[in-house]
């Protein structure tokens, strides 16, 4: 009987002495898990940032190609205007439209640079989602709509030469 009691006491002492160690182990496991979760979250954010940069780069290259196309079209229209002017024809409307197209092209170029800087800032921002709303607006209104307006002005210019 005494032996049994001694055994119970020994077990109780062992458990009590082990309790802080167990608690520490549990705390360590929880903090490791939290660290891993945090690490995972950071990796996901990096992955998304990389993805955004690639998307944006792809879109920028296409916009720049579109702008180059408009510039080349404008040069060709200018060349035609000069030739027709030499022939004594009235090209004033075409000249006005061409000038307007060039203004829109320059505005689009400038807005694209702003959007590039805006994206960098948005990615570094504490509120990236909100910051991107402005970048998007700048791209749509400042770049894409200006490109379309420039194209329309070039169409009007060539019509005026017909």
């Amino acid at each position: 009987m005494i032996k049994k009691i001694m055994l119970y006491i020994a077990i109780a002492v062992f458990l009590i002495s082990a309790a802080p160690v167990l608690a520490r182990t549990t705390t360590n496991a929880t903090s490791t898990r939290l660290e891993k979760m945090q690490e995972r979250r950071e990796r996901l954010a990096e992955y998304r940032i990389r993805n955004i940069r690639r998307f944006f780069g792809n879109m920028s290259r296409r916009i720049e190609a579109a702008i180059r196309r408009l510039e080349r079209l404008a040069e060709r229209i200018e060349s035609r205007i000069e030739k027709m002017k030499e022939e004594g024809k009235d090209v004033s409307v075409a000249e006005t439209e061409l000038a307007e197209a060039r203004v829109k092209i320059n505005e689009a170029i400038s807005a694209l640079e702003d959007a590039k800087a805006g994206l960098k800032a948005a990615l570094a921002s504490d509120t990236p989602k909100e910051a991107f709303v402005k970048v998007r607006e700048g791209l749509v209104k400042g770049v894409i709509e200006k490109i379309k307006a420039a194209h329309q002005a070039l169409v009007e210019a060539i019509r005026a030469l017909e």
Partner: protein
Amino acid sequence: MDHNKKIIIIIAVIVLGLAAVWFASKNWDMSGLDVTLLQYTSIGEFENMSTSDEIAAIEQDLNNTDFSDLGAELNSIEKEFNSGLAE
């Protein structure tokens, strides 16, 4: 098949299994992610055109200019921004 060969095959299978488990555990957090696939759209359509200053040629190139998908990536970019960069 002799005994040694069997052991080598078993070891190889175990090593491959462990490698697969290691690879899966290393990459599991990227799986199941709703990451939008990149759509590489060509810029060739903007590069090809005539150099003539004849009205008909210019008009044709103007008509063949399509800017409808210039901002095609914007929705994908927005989706990525909304997917938790702010977390």
